[in-house]
């Protein structure tokens, strides 16, 4: 029961973060910010939601001798968490880098133009 | 109006979407000029057929077509209800569509290879330009 409540709490928390990521994806001004929102928010919230389900599965294990299939599912869910946390940030960071290669300029905050322009020039050349 | 909506669209919304996607794909195959766009259209067209078939095998309130441990144990003990057809989705369309997906990938690979050779020979992927060059081609046969 406690596991179920904990899992529901985790899932709801994950949904909240998903909401944040979604808002960021629509509202942020430029590509890099959106990548940031999508990458971080999505990874974290996926982890939370899946771990919520994993906890629920753990709650289904009543005794270890018969519950091993469910336990296996629990372990597989942990593996999913591991893989998402491995691959999702990789792809986001590669995409941000690729955006730079593709020539997308970040939106520059007023007052910091010089600094960024210098930086951009250095890397582009 | 509403009755036709309820009779014709609501119970068959999958079929409607399949027809819409099929039309989109077929339109792209015929009307798009870029060869890769044509291929995307072709893939959409093929996927829509998968949608038709898989929709056929859906049963209200049925599970996936894999016999779980309890049902298997029951079936082994001779219980007749364990393998009630209403409990499992129709597996046959799934089998057919596995084959169709494979065929789709195979066709896509060959088509992309052809695209690359066409680009190597003509320097373009736009169909009208390719056809234009074909007319003036002096090619040994």
């Amino acid at each position: 029961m406690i596991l179920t409540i904990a899992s529901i709490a985790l899932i709801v928390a994950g949904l909240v973060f998903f909401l944040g990521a979604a808002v960021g994806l629509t509202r942020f001004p430029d590509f890099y910010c959106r990548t940031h929102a999508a990458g971080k928010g999505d990874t974290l919230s996926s982890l939370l939601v899946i771990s919520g389900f994993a906890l629920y599965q753990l709650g289904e294990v009543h005794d270890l001798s018969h519950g091993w299939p469910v336990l296996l599912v629990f372990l597989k869910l942990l593996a999913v968490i591991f893989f998402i946390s491995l691959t999702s940030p990789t792809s986001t960071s590669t995409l941000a880098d690729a955006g730079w290669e593709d020539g997308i300029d970040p939106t520059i905050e007023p007052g910091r133009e010089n600094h960024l322009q210098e930086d951009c020039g250095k890397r582009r050349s | 109006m509403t009755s036709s909506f309820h009779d014709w669209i609501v119970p068959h919304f999958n079929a409607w979407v399949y027809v819409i996607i099929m039309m989109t794909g077929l339109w792209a195959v015929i009307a798009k000029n870029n060869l890769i766009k044509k291929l995307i259209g072709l893939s959409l067209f093929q996927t829509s057929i998968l949608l038709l078939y898989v929709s056929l095998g859906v049963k209200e309130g049925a599970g996936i077509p894999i016999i779980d441990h309890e049902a298997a144990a029951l079936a082994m003990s001779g219980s007749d209800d364990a393998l009630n057809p209403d409990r499992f989705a129709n597996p046959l369309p799934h089998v057919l569509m596995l084959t169709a997906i494979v065929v789709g990938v195979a066709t896509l690979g060959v088509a992309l290879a052809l695209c690359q050779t066409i680009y190597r020979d003509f320097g373009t992927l736009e169909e009208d330009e390719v056809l234009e060059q074909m007319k003036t081609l002096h090619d040994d046969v």
Partner: protein
Amino acid sequence: MIVPFDILILIFLVVAAVISLCVKDLLAATMVFGAYGFLICLLWATMGAVDVAFTEATVGAGVSTVLFVATILNTRRKSTD
């Protein structure tokens, strides 16, 4: 079969299909086509066609997008329509 999932995914599906045909940048078009693959994999899952969904997941995520991108690398990224 989970009907509300089904309807939402079908709507997304049509949107993704149309977008992948409208975008002029072929790289974007093929990636959107990849998203179409993801969505259709979800659709098979909601319809209970697990094996089809599995195949679509491996093919859509692992192979077909990569093949498209490889072809675009060797040809051209822009398209006139």
